[in-house]
């Protein structure tokens, strides 16, 4: 039994201010345990008593993990440390990923009176962000803003990139950022000694440590991202006469209004690369026609939004995804080098590339000449037979001639693309879509622009493509229902957003039901 004399004054013990409370919030598999051990070693090296705890880290499967460390200058008696971080009572919060920083803020571990937040700004995406058919990425900017508000000091930059650059892991750059933040009263050399004493991958860890330490000490911030990605001037290669034709097309781009030009330039590059110069001319013909209509509706006052939007979606529509395009992209000059670089293959290492392709009868038929394709398609028996022959997964080794050749030949069909069944259908679809948008232009400029944007829903191959087309049709029908209303453009935009929420289109169904409830069309 320990009998202790009563504490005389009921005043806060000033030694509590020397107590450092540090929490690490990591995603499983990021080496939070290694970092914690380093911090403990660092503290003990500097004459501190330290205690660390964690909720058992069982690698990646546990999602987010918290490690917690407390330390106090060593004295004759052992201090009593807490075993878990408390809201409003954390001095240093290390977040090994940006949304983990957000989670720390939400949980109240980051407060303006005491917390230095050390966060890596990179993202490890959560599953819920990845499965959305459109864009489901969380808003890291919002977390950054909240961090500035919630923390006493913020040290935030991409520590993952620094670690990778040094061939190390993020625990080393987080440790460096901790050193550079200057929040712990320990000399930098003792950090280095700690890393050296750990004995594994020392050189690389030290490199990552130093880079992050310097960045943190200078309160380095990530460069601001470009608000709008600007199309690089696409460099084209090919025979001289074709290049001259290409340059001629460039002059037509120069004649377009300012707001249209960047997208039209990117769009033109896309379709020429996809097919040929003549196809590029066709693209510009269509675009210029749309521009004329746009002008007639005083598009200049609206920054030619209609033509600019058309420049973007017309290009993706004309450069539709088909077998020929895939084969072309996979048999281009430079791909081997790109793959090798992506795989970080060293010299003397062979890179064997296997493609996973799975064509179905429908795709094969769509690559047949119009009449032959239509003939086969009209005969279910024939289609079934064809499906039995072609419909299976194929693994093609494109680093070998045997696998490369079939794709090369398929890519060569590009020159006859205009005569194929698929092309006719795609062009008809483009015409129908553009006509619908053009018809709305004199009535409701904004709605016409949104109508163009519906094209975003058509993407992918086989089933995905079919699903996209179905969504396109449903949103087009919804857009027709709201036509004439003042908020038609808003509703169409909402339909597009809903269509991109989930693969089956449940959100879209809901939005359409709402529209039907206030339009007189009933069950359209």
């Amino acid at each position, binding site marked *: 039994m320990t009998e202790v004399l009563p504490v005389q004054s009921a005043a806060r013990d000033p030694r509590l201010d020397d107590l450092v409370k540090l929490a690490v919030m990591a995603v499983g598999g990021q080496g939070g345990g290694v970092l914690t051990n380093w911090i403990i070693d660092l503290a003990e090296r500097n004459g501190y008593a330290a205690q660390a705890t964690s909720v058992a880290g069982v690698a990646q499967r546990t999602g987010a993990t918290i490690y917690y460390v407390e330390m106090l200058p060593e004295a004759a008696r052992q201090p009593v440390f807490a075993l878990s971080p408390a809201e409003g009572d954390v001095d240093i919060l290390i977040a090994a990923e940006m949304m983990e920083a957000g989670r720390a803020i939400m949980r109240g571990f980051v407060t303006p009176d005491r917390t230095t937040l050390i966060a890596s700004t990179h993202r490890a995406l959560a599953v819920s962000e990845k499965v959305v058919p459109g864009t489901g*990425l969380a808003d890291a900017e919002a977390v950054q803003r909240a961090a500035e508000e919630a923390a006493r000091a913020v040290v935030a930059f991409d520590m993952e990139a620094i670690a990778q650059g040094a061939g190390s892991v993020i625990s080393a750059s987080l440790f460096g950022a901790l050193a550079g933040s200057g929040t712990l009263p320990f000399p930098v050399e003792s950090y280095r000694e700690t890393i050296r004493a750990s004995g594994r991958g020392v050189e690389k860890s030290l490199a990552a440590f130093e880079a992050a330490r310097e960045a943190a000490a200078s309160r380095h911030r990530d460069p601001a991202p470009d608000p709008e990605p600007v199309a690089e001037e696409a460099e084209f290669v090919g025979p001289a006469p074709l290049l001259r034709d290409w340059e001629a097309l460039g002059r037509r781009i120069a004649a377009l209004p300012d707001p249209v030009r960047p997208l039209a330039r*990117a769009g033109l590059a896309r379709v020429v690369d996809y097919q040929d110069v003549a196809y590029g001319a066709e693209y510009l013909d269509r675009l210029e026609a749309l521009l004329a209509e746009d002008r007639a509706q005083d598009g200049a006052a609206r920054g030619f939004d209609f033509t600019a939007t058309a420049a973007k979606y017309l290009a993706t529509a004309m450069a539709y995804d088909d077998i020929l395009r895939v084969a072309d992209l996979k048999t281009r000059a430079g791909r081997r080098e790109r793959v090798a670089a992506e795989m970080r293959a060293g010299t003397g290492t062979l890179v064997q590339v296997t493609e996973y392709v799975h064509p179905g009868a429908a795709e094969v038929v769509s690559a047949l000449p119009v009449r032959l394709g239509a003939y086969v398609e009209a005969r279910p028996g024939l289609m079934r037979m064809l499906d039995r022959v072609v419909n299976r997964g194929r693994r093609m080794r494109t680093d070998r001639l045997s696998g490369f050749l079939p794709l090369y030949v398929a890519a060569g069909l590009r020159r006859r693309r205009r005569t194929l069944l698929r092309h006719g259908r795609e062009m008809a679809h483009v015409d129908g879509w553009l006509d619908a948008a053009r018809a709305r232009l004199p009535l409701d400029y904004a709605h016409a622009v949104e109508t163009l944007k519906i094209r975003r829903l058509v993407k992918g191959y086989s089933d995905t493509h079919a699903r996209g087309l179905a969504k396109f049709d449903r949103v087009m029908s919804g857009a027709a229902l709201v036509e004439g209303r003042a908020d038609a453009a808003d509703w169409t935009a909402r339909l597009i957003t809903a269509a991109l929420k989930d693969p089956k289109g449940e959100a879209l169904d809901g939005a359409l039901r709402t529209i039907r409830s206030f339009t007189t069309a009933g069950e359209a």
Partner: protein
Amino acid sequence: MAERSFKKEVEHLRIGAGETFRGEGILAITKALLENGVGYVGGYQGAPISHLMDVLADAEDLMAELGIRFEANASEAAAAAMLAASVHYPIRGAVTFKSTVGTNVASDALANLASGGVKGGALIIVGEDYGEGSSIMQERSHAFATKSQIWLLDPRPNLPSITDAVRHGFELSEASNTPVMLMVRIRCCHVHGSFEARDNVPPKLTVRDALKNPQRDTGRIVLPPASFLHEKEKVEKRWPAAVDYIRKHRLNEHFGPKESRVGIVLQGGMYNGVIRALQRLGLADVYGDSAVPLYVLNVTHPLLDDEVLDFCAGKDAVLVVEEGQPEYLEQALRAILHKAGATAKLAGKDVLPMAGEYTGRVMLEGLEAFMAAHAPDILPDRGRAPNTPAPVPDLTKVVPGRPPGFCTGCPERPIFAAMKLVEEEMGPHQISADIGCHLFSIMPPFEIGGTTMGYGLGPASNAAFDGGGERRPISILGDGGFWHNGLTSSIGNAVFNKSDGVTIVVDNYYSAATGGQDILSSRATNRTKATKHPIAEAVKGVGVTWVRQIDRTYDVGKMRETLRDALTTDHEGPKVIVASSECMLNRQRREKPLLAKAVQEGRRVERPKFGVDEEVCTGDHACMRLSGCPSLTLKMPDDPLRDDPVAHIDQTCVGCGNCGEVADAAVLCPSFYRADLVHNPGRFEKWWARWQTRAIDWLIARRASRRLAREVVR
């Protein structure tokens, strides 16, 4: 081979008196067992004591030197049953498991053990999986202790206190002929600290020696009339003996001043949290010297009435800090005070919440409320104190949840991708899951499986549906659950009842969810355990006739075919698919150093990795909805014509093949490619590759000379 090796740390377990032991809580417990002459140890892994089992397994050699028997038991029930050795023999034994789930499984053996009583000290070390990071239902072990009359130790969470608790646990058990439960909470298991070591002591009587001279005592066997006598003996002899021991050795501790109008009674495990709250209130200093009297219950069952009454005497109010519900201690203390006619007011679950973990904030607010109500004068003015949290910027709509999921390259991912594809064809099914990694299938992106009723009980929990119907019920069982309880309770049960259901046994070669321990069907060679017993053979052995063994789960097409077969066959009786591939985490840990060494030594090594042709990917993310792999992620292409991010595979990819297989089986998109890096290729191989490259380059150049194309394609 377990996920974490303690080989290095285990060497520290040899240190003796005069030395200081530094390390984690679980290592300290192991050291204390050795110092206290334990004769045998066993247990079943599960957080938070998985690593304790790993430590024990790694310390097997050391224990063998001391004559200690170690068993990695088949289940918690088997572990508890092992304590039978202490019933007739004066041998100290210790077992460990996760609580409350493990205690549930073990409770039959525990109740029998407690009824007959023990001669040698019997210690049950339970890892209380409560609060943050817990993976189980939130319940308390306390109920098991009181119902079976097992003494419950809940020591302060520091190494000297835990190691003391082990010593006293054995002695208390022997003094009162009663098994003792030592409860350690999650963070206590992993707390890093130090304590003064003692010498390791071999058991006075080893289990090996005991076998030479078998003993029995009918009076200890749970059978009438002895069982009726046991109950009387429990309350008349064993309880008083325990109370005497606890009082004599001052197992419960007092801190702070003797005289005060208020006081706090707390579970030992709550000590650090209470001190922190007192520190923040200005009522304790950094070393824990408190201005408020504390009565720390390192033993939460039994309670010592006179100690309680002594503590409450002269106090206006006493706060009980007791985590979890029901509030067993508070009720018991109330009864003690009431019986004695004591006047002290008892506070507890009125100022502290009934349910949920006592985090820093909860503790601070609870203690502050109690002090404000009963001793406002000793509370310093906290109005001016700066540590009231400021309002937090609202990020609830921004920050996505990060539930646990399958690891990179997990062999279970393709199984559930196949199941999802089958469900797309045939519609949704009634699916029950089990305990284990596979349970992550209930999370996005798979969202498969509806129930989890207990370890090895996946198929059993579908029993009501086993009579058949329009669509067969499907159940999932991991290999860990299979050997724990599943073979009899689930598979045997299905055979006997002529089940029409389909069962998938997910065999990843380890008890993977608990940290990769070996089990009967593991394929590794284990020096001290018998492995390599195929699950399919066991299934056939209990009478299943429709059994399919799949040896590469990554073959999504085959997985889907087999599942389709199982769901449509007219075969009567249970349909069992054993889907086997090694846990990728363990496989990487095993293979990575070997491959790196082979590359260094100049031997030929192939390493697969996946990639995405950025311009082929259309950004629909259908592949993500059949994967959820951490290495398969997204990036925003640098292209103004694009609205949506495209798939991207990062450097952590292990080339398991799921991406390609799924793209193929689900007919998704051709943007994935597999790149096999061949390190140190052979001479012929190099020559052949060079020739192929030349031919391909000639073809590429030929086409490039006739067309216009962008120079850079991504």
